[in-house]
């Protein structure tokens, strides 16, 4: 199949990049691109497929980053294990926020705001709790090149780690899309009353989507903390992070497999392209994001994937 061949070629190219290109700048840019695609896909499970628009996914990101960093700092536990503990904690918190929201039928803007509020609670709590580093946050103690501790002397290792994580996630979401749970999530997004009439329990399906989404986003958060060896309350739980997480899947196409990846690619290229322009004005990139988001919502209400689909590309794929 030419399609499969094309994907394999792309994959091989991605795997080859660090061997061919020595530039730390290029590797770093691609690493962040994959990383944003990863957490974007995490958001996409709940916000895209299940249609429950979360405006506070930094909640899970921060939990993942803090849990893995704290487990290492306080207990000496390797972040390779700590990241899964972070995912587990995120699932637990996700189930609580999900229960409170979905049990009482919160939708749309109300659900989005509840998620934002929870993330803010965690941000304020982390800021004021010295045990977790207070407002300064946590510096992950560096051990040099220590692969078993998720620390690498060379950034190219991180490139491969996040590439592998992104591949595994893309494969898993492709499976999810074609599974019973995936169809039930889409059905609830498209029409909750009709889904209910067909034997789907909206509460349970939304909770399942929340759990998956929280776990993935937390794993992304743990990767971030290791990559930068640093996490603080604003980076972890802040609203700016929540926006970063949801921006790419929305621009790329929420509720599609390739949306978060496409969004990460476009925004990554754009970010690098305008870096020189933006460097001297702190916060200008956020304004730029705002403009892009508005443009995307107005001109591409279903993201780049939606636009491609209505042009007929991939029209047959759902048949």
């Amino acid at each position: 199949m030419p399609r499969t061949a094309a994907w394999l070629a792309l994959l091989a190219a991605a795997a080859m990049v660090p061997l061919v290109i020595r530039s730390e700048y290029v590797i770093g840019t691609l690493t962040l691109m994959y990383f944003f695609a990863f957490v974007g896909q995490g958001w996409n499970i709940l916000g895209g497929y299940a249609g429950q628009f979360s405006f506070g996914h930094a909640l899970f990101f921060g939990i993942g980053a803090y849990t893995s960093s704290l487990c290492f700092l306080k207990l000496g536990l390797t972040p390779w294990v700590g990241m899964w503990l972070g995912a587990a904690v995120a699932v637990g918190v996700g189930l609580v926020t999900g229960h409170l929201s979905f049990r009482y039928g919160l939708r749309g803007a109300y659900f989005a705001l509840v998620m934002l509020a929870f993330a803010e609670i965690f941000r304020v709590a982390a800021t004021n709790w010295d045990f977790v580093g207070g407002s300064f946050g946590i510096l992950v103690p560096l051990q040099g090149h220590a692969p078993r501790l998720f620390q690498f002397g060379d950034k190219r290792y991180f490139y491969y780690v996040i590439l592998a994580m992104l591949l595994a996630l893309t494969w898993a979401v492709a499976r999810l899309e074609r599974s019973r749970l995936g169809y039930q999530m889409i059905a609830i997004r498209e029409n909750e009353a009709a889904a209910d009439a067909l034997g789907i329990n909206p509460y349970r399906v939304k909770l399942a989507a929340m759990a998956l989404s929280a776990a993935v986003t937390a794993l992304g958060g743990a990767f971030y903390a290791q990559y930068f060896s640093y996490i603080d309350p604003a980076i972890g739980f802040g609203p700016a992070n929540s926006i970063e997480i949801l921006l790419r899947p929305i621009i790329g196409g929420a509720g599609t497999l390739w949306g978060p990846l496409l969004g990460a690619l476009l925004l990554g290229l754009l970010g690098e392209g305008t870096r020189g322009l933006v460097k001297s004005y702190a916060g200008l990139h956020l304004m730029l994001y705002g403009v892009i988001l508005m443009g995307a919502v107005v001109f591409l209400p279903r993201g780049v994937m939606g636009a491609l689909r209505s042009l007929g590309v991939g029209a047959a794929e759902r048949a």
Partner: protein
Amino acid sequence: MTLIEVRSLSKRFGGLQALSEVSLSLAQGEILGLIGPNGAGKTTLFAAVTGFVRPDGGSVRLDGQEITGLPPHAICRRGLARTFQLVQPFPELSVVENVMVGAFNRTRSAAVARRRALEVLALTRLAPLAGRPAHALSIGLRKRLELARALATEPRVLLLDEVMSGLTPTEVDETVEVIRGIREAGVSIIVIEHVMAAVMGLSDRIAVLHHGELIAAATPAEIVQDRRVIDAYLGEPLAGKRE
């Protein structure tokens, strides 16, 4: 054998008594027509039976089991499915995927659900459209899709809310055949319908609602002679024609 037993079901919306002590039953293998003027409470009755509206009083039993007050998905899982008068397709999904969502009511496997969905599409004569996105269907076909999706949940009882109104005469005939086929497959059916010829020809019995009250329940032949039904709903011309 009685499959559905509705007893003294009542529902009030503000100052409007939408249902008032309605009692009726559906036998295994029966097609029951539910008719009455607009606003008579037909759709509210469906909503109260399928868990979308909580009745103020009365009870609904499915095969002897009390189902009053259960949420819609729990009622569907017990084998009672409905369609919506205002069609509610999943627009982003294809026709076969819409039906698969129904089929997942009885299986966890996507392959089994797809096979089951294709069978249902064949039965409802939608098979040639399986790959189309649901939002691209005409209103008539969307109504058929609504029916197919409910059928894919493998119900024992199917409640059809105006699946024929707004269809062309050919489509109506086709839908009548489809509904007969569903009954042959062992499903008992209640149909709300305004297309009189179709509902009279299709139903074993007809129940008539008027201002939330059940004013008659009898065979089609008896219904067209019923004085109260003629006054409330049918009017003289149709009654005259049938004589």
